[in-house]
């Protein structure tokens, strides 16, 4: 039960973070250059992502569960540690926070300066929207496939991702702008903790480990990774403060 909740939460939050970034790109292009070709690009990228999940999901379920968990665990661990590393460095002040308002303004300026289309289809809008949605969605597709197939709950993982996209798009339509108030780094931090913890658990099971406490070991992994990440963030903040107290106070 708790692993289902964590699976839903991890997939939902990862999808929400990537959906916010994709929405910023789509809004920037659509507002400046029109919606027809932009939405065609979004639709084409969504079809490609759905095809990847539809093709890989059932195919992966034919692989022996221990091999699958080893591969999925390794993949989730590499993704999780990448997300976590960036989130810790951003929270500690060693990397700038992702700024959706700045990304929107820069995307808008680029879209405005690109050549206007000669035909009916604006290929600039199509390509930028297609690339934005595909690249932001690809990692989500792997997380959905990974979470879903390793736990035999592909439907739950797809549902969580779809719910996140619906929520982000609905909020985007209501505020009619980029979602700048979303605490993106906090979400990335939480997702990083969950991906890393599931990666440890499934990767270990795939390698033949028997976890003390069975499924409860996932919660222990979440606690270990969470406490370590918070401690690292605090240590970075103290280090930053010690290095330049005036700058930090400002």
């Amino acid at each position, binding site marked *: 039960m708790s692993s289902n909740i964590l699976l839903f939460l991890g997939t939902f939050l990862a999808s929400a973070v990537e959906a916010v970034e994709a929405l910023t790109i789509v809004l920037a292009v659509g507002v400046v250059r029109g919606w027809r070709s932009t939405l065609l690009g979004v639709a084409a990228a969504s079809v490609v992502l759905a095809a990847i999940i539809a093709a890989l999901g059932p195919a992966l379920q034919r692989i022996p569960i221990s091999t699958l968990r080893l591969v999925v665990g*390794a*993949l989730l*661990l*590499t993704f999780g540690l990448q997300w976590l590393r960036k989130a810790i460095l951003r929270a500690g002040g*060693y*990397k700038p926070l992702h700024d959706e308002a700045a990304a929107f303004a820069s995307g808008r300026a680029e879209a405005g300066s690109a050549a206007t289309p000669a035909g009916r289809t604006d290929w600039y809008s199509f390509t930028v929207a297609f690339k934005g949605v595909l690249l932001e969605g690809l990692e989500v597709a792997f997380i959905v496939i990974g979470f879903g197939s390793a736990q035999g709950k592909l439907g739950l993982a797809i549902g969580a991702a779809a719910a996140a996209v619906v929520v982000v798009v609905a909020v985007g339509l209501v505020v009619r702008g980029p979602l700048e108030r979303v605490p993106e780094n906090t979400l990335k931090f939480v997702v990083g903790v969950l991906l890393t913890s599931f990666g440890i658990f499934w990767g*270990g099971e795939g*390698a*033949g480990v*028997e976890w003390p406490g069975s499924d409860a070991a996932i919660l222990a992994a979440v606690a270990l990774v969470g406490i370590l990440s918070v401690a690292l963030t605090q240590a970075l903040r103290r280090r930053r403060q010690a290095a330049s107290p005036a700058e930090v106070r400002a």
Partner: protein
Amino acid sequence: MKYVVAFGRFWWNFIVGDDWRVAAGLAVAFAGTWTLTHHGVNAWWLLPIAVVLLLVGSVLREARSGGA
């Protein structure tokens, strides 16, 4: 040829990311866990220890270099 290189670079960045040492360390940790468990040692502790060491090492390395 440049498309092959770009395709390879995309997957390298996608899977390995900014710090190749983390991916290499994970590969070693998985190989070690698999080897130990298949020789009768229930090495459940190896992956958590590896994750702690790799995350701390990677974050501190980046912080020492001043961040991006």
